[in-house]
């Protein structure tokens, strides 16, 4: 059955925008999606991955290296030898709750250790996710040390393994997408801050939207091929937009005025550190690239600021209004 098309997702504009930005610039540092169950979080991420064009990868490389520019840290491709390439779908790797560190990071290859007495590395989930997406449902229930490790790898793009007598590095560049329901436990603020973008998704409350969602799903289930074929034009358009944005991204400029606004916004909100500014600038640039713009404008900043900043605010028990409202308030002040 073909994957539910990205363009057929009803509503959830902010989440879709965040995912598109992450697809354009994986370095923005992951997307955190907080919200209710059954709001299409998992559908959206799988749909996005299916929409991306298949990538070329070195045959036999456990890290899906690009044959034209294999990662420096790839132990497989660094060994040299002829490189054959094949087309491969962009991977979406699910990280299950309760996954052991062994499975995530990779471990000593048990088969070969027992069978041949050879010390070899068995790549884990991080290796499989290279150049793709790593999706963690209920990231708030994942143990903190694992989240820490994931964010670390996601930021550096390299997984360093020092365990069980193994010592190696391999590329692990992926878009980290975490989702969860804050009512079931919150992420530590230090971890929250390290996600690039955070969106809040809620179940649509108005009945027409809900009906539209269920109707789309129903139509898809009754005739998946037909449904997707009818959407293929839209899908191609989004695909093209992402690819063009990737090309354009290095040339998008950020004027000094925009940088100043970014700084003032972060000051007004009292976000700690410089990560807020950096992410806001980065994501605004990706958004501008998606729009086909040459420079970042106020409009881009305004559109992405809530997602880039809302999870970096200090918790204030006096302020009953949510963090989104506080960002909006600061936006009006700064952009007056």
């Amino acid at each position: 059955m073909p994957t539910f098309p990205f363009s057929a997702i009803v509503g959830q504009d902010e989440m879709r925008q965040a995912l598109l930005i992450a697809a354009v610039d994986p370095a923005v540092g992951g997307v955190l999606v907080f919200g209710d169950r059954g709001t299409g979080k998992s559908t959206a991420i799988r749909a996005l991955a299916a929409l991306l064009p298949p990538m070329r990868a070195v045959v036999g490389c456990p890290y899906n290296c690009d044959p034209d520019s294999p990662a420096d840290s790839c132990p497989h491709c660094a060994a040299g030898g002829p490189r054959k390439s094949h087309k491969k779908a962009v991977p979406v790797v699910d990280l299950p709750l309760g996954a052991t560190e062994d499975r995530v990071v990779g471990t000593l290859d048990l088969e070969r250790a027992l069978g041949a007495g050879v010390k070899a590395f068995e790549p884990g989930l991080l290796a499989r996710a290279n150049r793709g997406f790593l999706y963690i449902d209920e990231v708030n229930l994942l143990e903190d040390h694992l989240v820490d490790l994931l964010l670390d790898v996601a930021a550096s793009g390299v997984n360093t393994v020092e365990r069980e007598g193994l010592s190696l590095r391999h590329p692990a560049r992926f878009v980290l997408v975490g989702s969860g329901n804050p009512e079931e436990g919150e992420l530590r603020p230090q971890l929250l801050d390290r996600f690039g973008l955070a969106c809040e998704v809620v179940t649509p409350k108005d009945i027409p939207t809900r009906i539209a969602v269920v109707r789309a799903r129903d139509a898809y289930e009754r005739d998946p091929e037909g449904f997707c074929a009818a959407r293929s034009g839209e899908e191609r358009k989004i695909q093209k937009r992402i690819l063009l944005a990737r090309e354009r991204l290095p040339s998008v400029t950020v004027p000094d005025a925009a940088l100043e606004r970014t700084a003032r916004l972060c000051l007004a909100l009292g976000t700690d550190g410089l990560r807020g500014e950096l992410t806001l600038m980065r994501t605004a640039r990706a958004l501008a690239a998606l729009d086909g713009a040459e420079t970042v404008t106020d409009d881009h900043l305004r559109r992405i600021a809530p997602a880039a900043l809302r999870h970096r605010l200090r918790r204030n028990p006096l302020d009953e209004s949510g963090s989104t409202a506080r960002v909006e308030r600061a936006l009006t002040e700064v952009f007056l």
Partner: protein
Amino acid sequence: MTGAPPVPPPSVDCDGHTSRPDAGKGRTHTPLPPPSAGEGEAPNLWADAHRAAHLIAADPIAYGGAVVRAPPGPVRERWLDTLRAALPPDTPWRRLPPGIGDDALLGGLDLAATLAAGRAVARAGLLAGADGGIVVVPMAERLPPGTASRLAAALDTGTASDRPARFGLILLDEGDGDEAVAETLADRLAFRIDLSGIGLAETWADSPDPEPGAAAADPVGDLCALAEAFGVASLRGPILATRVARGLAGDRPIGRQDIVTAARLVLAPRATRLPAPQEPAREEPAPENATPPEEPRAEPPPDDAAEPAAADRPEEIVLEAVRAAIPPNLLDQLLAGRHPLAGAKAGRVGQAAASRTGRPIGSRRGDPRRGRLDLLGTLRAAAPWQAVRQTEGETHRIVVRRDDLRIRILRQRTETTTVFCVDASGSAALERLAEAKGAVELLLAEAYVRRDRVALVAFRGTGAELVLPPTRSLTRAKRGLSGLPGGGGTPLAAGIDAAVAVAVGVRRGGSRPAIVLLTDGRANVARSGEGGRARAGAEALQAARALRAAGLPTLVVDTGSRGEEARAVADAMGARYLKLPRAEAGQLSAAVRAAL
């Protein structure tokens, strides 16, 4: 294990007891619940359960499966037999053993076979083996969260370790009281069946399928409106209900009755609120109803024809039909202000996660399926024997025998951290504070032996202060306590907030927190630091409810001599309450030990 053997026709003796040759191993004889016959207006529960079984059998993958809440016993067996008999022959049927590991569930290395053969022997996991069939999970309320999320991922993707694994899931929920199946998983399954009130005799009655009724104009719209009316937030509810309505209808168009049945089977068990009954004569929804089950689409104009307008609106009829299928205890739970499944999760998730981890403190001989293999330990154990075990021609591989296998011993983190939250305000504060200090020191001395920890939060004047971060150190505790001042207003909310923050941090660290709050409950300083009894009291109760939501075990020690304020706070926290107007240090520490 493969294939469903045909179910022999059960023979019934005159008492209504079954004697079935294959009633299953470990058949338990639970006293049957009394048959709930004679409720004319209630829908036939068994007929619905029966219908659900047939729907699942027709397409296990589309419906996800069912949560079956029932004690083990003949009624549940009968339902499972119904399902099994309705499935096509040779449909895979797998039972999930408790405590199943990743290798067995998703597939991996068959360790025993690998060792015996001396080469890697892979095996498919249980889920891949169940492709196209059914996976039955006994005691699903105790399913570890990790296993639950793996099952959810397999349901979403239809694969397990890159092998196809599309299956229907039957979660057998034997829990009573607060235990419930993980909502992540239950949300993905169409049906929730409660067999606990059904007598065996009822299961023999045949109930014909109801007439489909007139074709529904907009089944999706109707089901969405119904989901909204019953407070089903997740969109999986109406999506699955639509699927069920289509399944019921088959090739003919979806009828009115199909919608009623689908809503009753799928939406009613997920209801979180009861729609206010609407009088058919009225055109407008009741004004006090905050979320009327009203469709915002164009209202049909008031119709003066023979048929009343309300009858045209499908929700009206369907609402009534579905309302009857709401679980009977839902109302009580709603009145108690508790979401049916919400209370069950929070605490247990954390605990289960903690028991899986722990710190490795060594290894011992054991079966790696029951723990984590300690590879180095295993190889180390095998190393000395290699020369003896080497056979001719095979000099390169390491020979590992079962006896060499070592698994890690994990230390369970069960230490307790008691967070004292002390009211250091007002006139009697000095005395109270001295008692609290004494109790903390006493507990600390005991904790020192048990390796438990203690923390102290004090609130007075305009805010709260963490006087003593969680510690095991006696000297540090004494130093922190001696410098603690008293007097001023009572910022109770700030104190509770601070204690919760400390306790939640403690829980994150893997330790088990407990809060002891010493106060008279008379808050008079709000979080902002401003005075005012009313606002301070309201904020204190709000903070207390937040504490309850965090699921922290709490003891409230009422140090006031009169008044019920502390009791109200304790009730809002769901805490134990202890009235000790003149607590002595020894008495207090004894009470704390007994209560927590």
